[in-house]
Structures are given as C-alpha cells and as structure tokens.
C-alpha cells in the first residue's frame, strides 16, 4: 500500500521514535559499510586486494578506524577561532543526518501491530528539506576553513563554498522537471507517481517499462547526477581537497574525532544524494521489471531491499568515477557549471513545459502553431544573438614568427623534423605539427 501524507500524521509517537533511531543507526552502519565498499572497489579497479585484515575479509576495517580516532590526540592550532572551530564539524554532521528524515524506504508495513510507512516522515515540501540541509551543510565546510587560522584550509573552504553554491543551483534546477511531472514535492508522492510502468512490446517480448523519471526526464537525470558529484565534493570534482594543491583542504587542521565527523558527513552526504537520486529518478523503492513478475515484490519489507540495492548502485557509480577520472581544473569546473549545466537546464525546463501544455490542454490549432512558432523563434533568436567572442586574427606563419624574433633569442632546434611513421600502424603516416605554427606546412 502506498503511503500518503495522511499516513505520517497518524503515526504514534513511539513508532516515530523507533523510525528515527532506526534511520540514525542505519546511516552509521551504511557509512561504515560505504567506506569499506569504496576502498575495496577502488582496490579491485587498481588490481590490488584492498583492506583484508580486520574482521571477515576486512569488512571491519572502517569500524576499527572509527573506534581508533577518538583516542588520538586532538590538536587545535594556536591561530584557530576556538568556538567556531568546535561547532563546524557539528554543523556538518547534524545537517547530513537531518536530510535523511524524508527519504522513503518502502511502503506501509506493520511494526508491532501499528500500520506505518517505512519512512521517518513526509511533508509537502520534503525535497526542499533535503536541499535546505545541504545548503546549511556548506556552512560546516566554510566555517571549518575559516576558523582553522591557516592558509590551506581557508583556501579550501572558499573553493568549497564557490563550488557547492555553483552546483547547488544546477541541482535545484534539475529537479524542477520532476516536480512538474509528479505535481508534488513530497518524496512519497513522487515515488508513487513513478510507480505505474507502461506496457512496452519490444521484439515480440512484452514487459513493463519502468515509469522512472530517469527515463522520461533523461536530461534532468544527467544534470542531477553531475551536479550531485560536484555538490558532494567527490572526484573528479574534489577540488576543495586537491591534495597536490591544498593538502587536505578545509579539514587540514582537524584531527581526532572532529576529523571523523567531517568524514562521516561526507559519506552520509554521498548516501543522501544517492538516496535522493533513487527517490526522484530511479523509482524509489518500487521494484523494476524482472522482479515485478513476482506479485509480492512491492509489498511488505521487500521494497527496502530494492531501495538499498539502488542506492548501492548509485554509490558504485560514485566510486567508479573516482577510480577512473582525473581531477578537473578549477576554471574548467566552474565554466562547466555556469555555462553548460545551468542554461541547458533552463532551456530543457521550458521545452518540457511547452510540450506538456501542447499535450494536456485542448488548444485550437491556431494557438498550437503560434506556440510552436514562438518556441522556434526563441531558439533561433538565442542562437543568433548568442554572445560570441571576436574572431581571432589568423596566426602568422612559422617563418614569419621566426623572422620576428629579436636578435639574440634563445636558440631554436631544427623545426622541420619528420617523425618517422610508426611501424605498428602501417596505414597511418604520422603527421605531426610543430608546436604553435599555422596549419600550412609548405611555408616552412
């Protein structure tokens, strides 16, 4: 049975308390699991064993690390602002926990004789609660960087804030399309709206295609996925913690359990954006096609399993990205956020809105054509009036460049070296251009 907003108002207080505690414990366990999961997957991708000493197959490694940290010495730099240095990790961790209150794990089940939904609570503005928590979580990072009284953390904190606010806009815009399709901001209603699949016949095989918004709203999904990686400061967008430039970024000066809290918050944030991605785009706790052949798939406690499987799949993609991609340069990263993700997002939203108006309302043919014409006109106008840089003057030829060099310049190596064709590539003759010359080789 699908929960409605009314379901949550009927919860008894001790049921709510059990669910709150359950989510809290689940988050701690998931964090411990994810750290190990990440280390093992990255290790496999790098062809090495990964943690394999502590506990069965090394699965207790992160637990022992976590237990070790409080017993480490806590070092607070002399230049730190003590109070803010103290509360910054608390802000980070608290906001990370709170966001999970509105994530739906499953349908209505019976706990100790009480009918209740597998979700702590749901409100009409659930998704905004998650967004508010993530925007408050930025404070932990910025304040940690500021309060440390050290150069690297300050730079890391500022970078973080610029990065997170840039990608938060893209993330906020990407979910507008979901609201438009589902007509709601409550997570349980969004999951319910994705519940009905469509019958699809493909190559003589009948099956139910998922009503997932990842399929229906593919551009939104892609933008959400990219901005989620940017928002959680994960590779390839982990510039605030770029080791080669900023040591550890905002948490360089943190040690002992304060550092552990930042670590915890980072992993919970990763789990939260994965869970939100599952909820908004991957159908939430609803099982997908081959499983739905079994009629009991979406009842009882089973959906929690499908939900966790989807979340772990999203987390795997996070880890996969980290193992595969090199870190981006900061200017490329900001340019991508502001010049690609945001305009594409806005155009996509308007396009979707136009299509929806054409579909749903019974307009006259004339209005219909006017609308399509207006849309085409807008696209053409934007394309024509798009600010383009001035055309660069054609570069002078190599001979001219050499002649223009002043007397006594640094000696040049011979510039007409031929690279011999590679013996392994028989078809291709390597034609290598010397650096910084015009395209015309005959002038040399």
């Amino acid at each position, binding site marked *: 049975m699908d929960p409605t907003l009314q379901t949550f108002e009927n919860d008894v207080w001790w049921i709510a308390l059990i669910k709150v505690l359950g989510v809290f414990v689940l988050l701690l366990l998931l964090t411990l699991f994810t750290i190990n999961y990440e280390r093992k997957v990255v290790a496999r991708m790098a062809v090495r064993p990964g943690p394999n000493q502590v506990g069965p197959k090394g699965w207790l490694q992160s637990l022992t690390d976590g237990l070790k940290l409080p017993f480490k010495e806590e070092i607070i730099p002399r230049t730190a602002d003590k109070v803010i240095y103290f509360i910054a990790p608390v802000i980070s961790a608290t906001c990370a926990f709170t966001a999970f209150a509105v994530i739906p794990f499953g349908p209505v089940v019976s706990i100790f004789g009480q009918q209740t939904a597998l979700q702590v609570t749901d409100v*009409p*503005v659930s998704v905004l609660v998650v967004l*508010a928590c993530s*925007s*408050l979580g930025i*404070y932990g990072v910025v304040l940690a960087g500021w309060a440390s009284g050290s150069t690297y953390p300050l730079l890391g904190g500022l970078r973080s804030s610029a990065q997170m*606010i840039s990608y938060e806009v893209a993330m906020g815009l990407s979910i507008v399309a979901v609201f438009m399709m589902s007509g709601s901001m409550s997570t349980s209603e969004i999951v319910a709206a994705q519940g009905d699949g469509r019958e699809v016949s493909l190559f003589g095989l009948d099956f139910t295609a998922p009503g997932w918004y990842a399929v229906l709203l593919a551009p939104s999904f892609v933008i959400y996925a990219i901005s989620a990686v940017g928002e959680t400061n994960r590779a390839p967008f982990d510039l605030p913690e770029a080791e080669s430039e900023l040591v550890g970024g905002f948490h360089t000066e943190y040690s002992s359990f304060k550092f552990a809290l930042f670590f915890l918050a980072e992993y919970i944030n990763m789990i939260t954006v994965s869970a939100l991605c599952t909820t908004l785009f991957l159908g939430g706790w609803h099982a997908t096609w081959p499983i739905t052949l079994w009629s009991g798939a979406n009842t009882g406690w089973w959906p929690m399993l499908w939900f966790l499987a989807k979340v772990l799949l999203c987390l795997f993609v996070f880890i996969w990205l980290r193992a595969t991609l090199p870190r981006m340069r900061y200017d490329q990263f900001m340019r991508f956020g502001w010049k690609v993700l945001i305009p594409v997002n806005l155009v996509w939203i308007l396009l979707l809105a136009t299509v929806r108006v054409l579909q749903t309302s019974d307009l006259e043919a004339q209005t219909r054509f006017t609308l399509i014409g207006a849309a085409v006109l807008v696209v053409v106008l934007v394309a024509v009036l798009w600010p383009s840089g001035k055309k660069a003057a054609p570069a002078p030829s190599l001979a001219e460049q050499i002649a223009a060099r*002043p007397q006594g310049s640094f000696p040049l190596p011979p510039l007409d070296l031929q690279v011999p064709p590679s013996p392994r590539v028989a078809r291709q003759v390597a034609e290598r251009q010397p650096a910084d010359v015009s395209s015309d080789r005959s002038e040399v």
Partner: protein
Amino acid sequence: MSGGEATLFWILAPLAVIGALGMVLARNAVHSALWLVCTMLSLGVFYVAQAGPFIGMAQIIVYTGAIMMLFLFVLMLVGRDASDSLIETLRGQRVAAIVLGVGFAGIVGAGLSRALAGTGAIGLDAANENGNLQGIAQLLFTKYVFAFEVTSALLISAAVGAMILAHVERAKGEKPTQVDRMKARFAPGSYPGPKAGPGIFATSDSVATPARLPDGTFAERSISKILPVRELTSEESALKGTEK
C-alpha cells in the same frame, strides 16, 4: 496557539532575539554573520510552524545563501581577523542611533497594526485548502503576476550591479596565454632555467627566507613576491620540543 506551537515559540523566539542582538554586538564581523544565520533559521522554523512550509524552506535555502555571500564579502573586505573598533568617531552617535531605531520600530509597528486592524483573516484551513504550494502558486502566478514579473527586474539589477562593482573586464588579448608566457620566458635577457629555490638553512627552512647566491647576497627572485622578506626571531628558530 496550540501547546506545541507555544512551546516552540518560547524556545525559538528568545533564540531569534539573541541572534539579532549577537549580530549587532559581536565585534568580529564573521561572528556577526553567524548570529544572523541563527535568527534567520529561527524565523524559517516559525514559518513552518505557522503552516507555511514552503516559505519557511525558501527562507532557509535563500537566506543561508545570502548570508554566505555576506560572509564572503566580509572576508574580502576586511580580511580574516578583523574586529570592529569600539571608538566612537561621531559624538552621541550611539544614543542617536538607539533613539532613532526605537522610533522607527514604533512607527512601523503602529503603521502595520493600524493598516491590518480591519483585515479579517480567512484562516489557514481555507488558505491551505488545496495544499500550501498550490495556494501560493495560484496567488503568485495569477493575482500577483505583475509583482512576480517585476522581481525579475530586481534580479537583473542585482546581477548587473555585482558585475559592475566586482568584475574587472579584460579583453581577450590582455590576458597572457601560455604561448605569450613561453615567449616571454625565452625572450632575450631573461633566464629560462628554473628559479633558485628559497633557502634551506640550519636555522630556518621557511619559504620566506631567500636563497643566497655564490657571492653571499640574497637572491631576490627566489622568494615569492607576496611574502615579505623576514629574519626569523630567536623564538621562532628555537627548538620546539618535538624531540621528546
């Protein structure tokens, strides 16, 4: 007010007031900004408690961003450790400010109470009949559509204003490209090899200690231009007790 709402009010209202006072009284500008966050968060929770969940969440999301901007602004303007000066530059400024502030609050309060005295509330149940969000959308995009469209003009002026104040425009040719830099490096008169590193000496290994050339003079180009040249004090170069 129900019991729960009254409890919430008596917890959060003092918090909001303390935040506002702290914002005015804190000497460190960054602490001021943080007190303001406290006040804004309390207000956001108030809105949610008064059956306006959307406006409450919008308050939290937008104002955290806005205060973040204030925070950055403080960092940019005054640097990290700046504190207010407590010296009064204008005589009687404080007294005048308090009197005028209280007077202004009185006028606004009186004006609002007079203006709203005759207005009958239709009640939350009627207003939120189709849901809070839908109710807001119906009003905002039909009755108050002009105000909504005018907001975009406000946003334009904010963006353009920030652009004019903060942006230093550089034409494409002004910024040296990698090719320009390489040419400058190999131009006659400049030494293309690596720069001498800052000194590693027995008493100091700071990047602020310049390297020495073979004749014993300091190599000016070995230290970064943003660092002032300094000699370490005896305290700085003393043993730090790490050998224990």
